[in-house]
């Protein structure tokens, strides 16, 4: 590898620049982030530190991660955090503002269709019973359309995470989930239907007396 290894002694990080050849492609080597394959060799496509990660079945993932900040684009399959902007009977429009645990600088447009809200009885879903504008949801990107990302909250740990009661009061406090289909506002004890994400540990959910 013709990377300059002069000052590597300090904390043996391997710095690479775009276009530098990293290693030959073997069967157990997987292309990681920030690399591309050309003519049987793996080349770096970003500047940063080379990291070779041993995953379980002895696969080595060669990836280049750039120190400083991390520019991410929501890719298909990522779990993203988004805010619901508009709900219509057929779909909910949301703005994705965080991918995995990286906060994005500019939000991307997301679209959550009715059929992708939950796995069971897909077609009898009522969007207004699952989401309200202003909710913060966890969703998975299933497809990238021309103008926006297609989201889905079909799995159990996806759905509404923070929701506010829909009666417009100034200091609204987030509602507490009381089961997987409902949330309650601690002040006004109003119950509102939501598709709750199963993220909170069991103990914090006060079971209905």
């Amino acid at each position: 590898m013709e990377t300059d290894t002069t000052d590597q002694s300090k904390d043996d990080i391997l710095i690479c620049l775009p276009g530098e050849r990293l290693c030959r492609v073997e069967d157990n080597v997987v292309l990681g982030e920030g690399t591309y394959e050309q003519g049987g060799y793996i080349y770096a496509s970003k500047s940063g530190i080379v990291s070779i990660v041993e995953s379980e079945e002895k696969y080595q993932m060669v990836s280049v991660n750039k120190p400083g900040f991390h520019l991410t684009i929501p890719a298909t399959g990522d779990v993203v955090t988004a805010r619901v902007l508009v709900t219509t009977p057929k779909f909910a429009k949301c703005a994705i503002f965080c991918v995995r645990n990286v906060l994005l600088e500019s939000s991307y447009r997301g679209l959550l269709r009715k059929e992708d809200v939950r796995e069971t009885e897909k077609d009898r879903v009522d969007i207004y019973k699952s989401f309200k504008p202003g909710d913060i949801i966890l969703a998975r990107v299933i497809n990238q359309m021309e103008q926006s990302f297609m989201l889905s909250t079909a799995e159990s740990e996806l759905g509404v995470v923070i929701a506010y009661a829909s009666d417009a009061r100034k200091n609204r406090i987030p509602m507490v989930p009381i089961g997987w289909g409902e949330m309650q506002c601690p002040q006004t004890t109003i119950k509102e239907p939501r598709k709750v994400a199963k993220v909170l540990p069991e103990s914090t959910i006060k079971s209905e007396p």
Partner: protein
Amino acid sequence: MLRVAPIKNTLLDGATITEQLYTTPKDCEDFFESLEKPTEVKATPRSTFIRAGVLTTVLGSAYMEYGNTKVLAIVAPPRELMRSSARRMNMGVLNCYVNFAAFASGELETVPEREKHLGGMLTKALEPLVCRNEFLNFQLDVRVLILDDDGCLLSTAINCCGVALVECGISTYDIITASTACIYKNLVFVNPSAKVEELLGQHRGADSAQMEEHGLLMNASMDTFEQLAQCQQCGYMKPETFVKLLDYTLEINKSLRQLIRRVLTDRVKEQHVLDKKEQEAERQEDERLAGIIARLKEQGLHEFIQSNIKEDPYTKK
């Protein structure tokens, strides 16, 4: 008889552009005589200064000085494609916009046309560099601001954008380097200054009949696979001189490449050190918190701790 176009330039009301480019053909001749003719061609870049990450407000920015041509390049993270045109193949779209600073160039009426020309050429040069298949259905905006114009504008802009793209974390196939060479009255000038470029422009190449060739060649190359990203020639020259100029520019590109690699590597080290410091600070913060919790625990306030500090579900440590 001369049509003087009174262009109102608010920023420039006080300051006047000092050096006036030529006004009569006679000026070109005696400027050319006054120029010290390069005896043999030294294919070396001018004294260059490159700094990546100059702006705090933008993620990917770079500033470059090539001789006294000064250029600032900014790369914004990709955003959705506005107009969905059917022409988009399976690649992302790259748009480049070049703007002259108000004080950058003397004659102001040709500025908008030069801006459009440079923008078009810059897009063509950067397209092979960027891995556009990674940001499908997205568009990447690159903006270049030209602060001072002393020739080789396009090649400096290309180098500066290459550094800005790498700095912004956009995946690129290689590091791009570009340079310019020109030939006027059978004399080869490498890295021509603005006045020499002015000589070549506006059809004035062949004042004297015996003038065989004149012309300018700009070449952007990516050396890992010896690929030429953009090779653009204007003027009038034989194929042999075309190849001769091409080789000069390739040589300059090699030395420029070393410089850019050093700049980028230093930049990565610098950010790595910053990262380390940040992680260090974060670790200390966690320890301090853990210390408080431990102390409170001995005083038996278990329920109080449990009730309001929920285990933060979203950040997977």
